[in-house]
């Protein structure tokens, strides 16, 4: 078992463990911090899966920007005050959700188990998105050669989101 395998095992375990921690922690601030750790584990996994660009993006955009937004909202709303009662739904709903999640997991693993992996290209296929500059070039080609329309649409999406957030969160001055 080489270093890569050890690292994969560690980060995969970390991602799952921190995910469970997010779901079970009562305190919202702790949950947010655990979620950051979960995202960092995923970023490491991306890097190990030859997607360094996405790994870096995951750290900057997800673990950085999005989580700062989350923590900001947590602090601003001061959720602790309202969190006196149980942070969970009633026991009936928890049991139902547990059953549903287990069913979902079983269904999905049933699908994965029979995933026709043999039909897929082997890991070291000549065309695999390689590490380093090659990966960035290939993703950039996928993004800008064929995906130009989607890239524009994401621009419009960000404009929509900016306007939507302004409508939601801002108060008119005269109010």
């Amino acid at each position, binding site marked *: 078992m080489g270093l890569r*395998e050890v690292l994969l095992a560690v980060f995969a375990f970390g*991602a*799952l463990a921190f*995910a469970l921690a*997010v*779901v079970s922690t009562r305190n*919202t601030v702790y*949950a*947010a911090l655990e*979620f950051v750790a979960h*995202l960092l584990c995923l970023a490491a996994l*991306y890097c190990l899966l030859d*997607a360094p660009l*996405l790994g870096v993006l995951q750290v900057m*955009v*997800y673990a950085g920007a*999005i989580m700062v*937004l*989350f923590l900001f*909202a947590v602090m*601003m*709303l001061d*959720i602790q005050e309202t969190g006196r*009662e*149980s*942070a*969970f*739904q009633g026991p009936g*709903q*928890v049991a139902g959700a547990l059953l*549903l999640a*287990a069913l*979902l*997991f079983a269904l*999905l*693993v049933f699908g*994965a*188990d029979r*995933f026709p992996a043999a039909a*897929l*290209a*082997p890991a070291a296929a000549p*065309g695999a*998105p390689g590490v380093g500059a090659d990966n960035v070039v*290939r*993703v950039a*080609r*996928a993004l800008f050669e064929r*995906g130009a329309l*989607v890239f524009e649409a*994401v621009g419009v*999406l*960000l404009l*929509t*989101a900016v306007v939507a*957030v302004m*409508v*939601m*969160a801002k*108060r008119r001055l005269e109010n």
Partner: protein
Amino acid sequence: MFGVGFFLALAFALFAVGAFGVLTRRDPLVMFMCIEMMFNSGNLALVALSRYLGLASGHALVFFVVAVAAAEVAVGLGIIIAIFRTEKDVNVDHLSELKG
């Protein structure tokens, strides 16, 4: 050991954990985090599958998903703040004006 099946199984597990969280938690902020967890599990599956297919188009999709998720979180937090201003409380159980 670390074939495509391993990563898919890990992604499925994260997906199920996220779904469980959305269904059981009351705090909308934690619910959002759980939804983000589900998006991330989809991303993980995409990255693993891209690697094993030897294609970069999956990476492009992940790129867009991250951008979309950021926008969605911003709008969601905006709505939560708007509700908090009116109600001073963001526990989903207390939001029950709509019933029937």
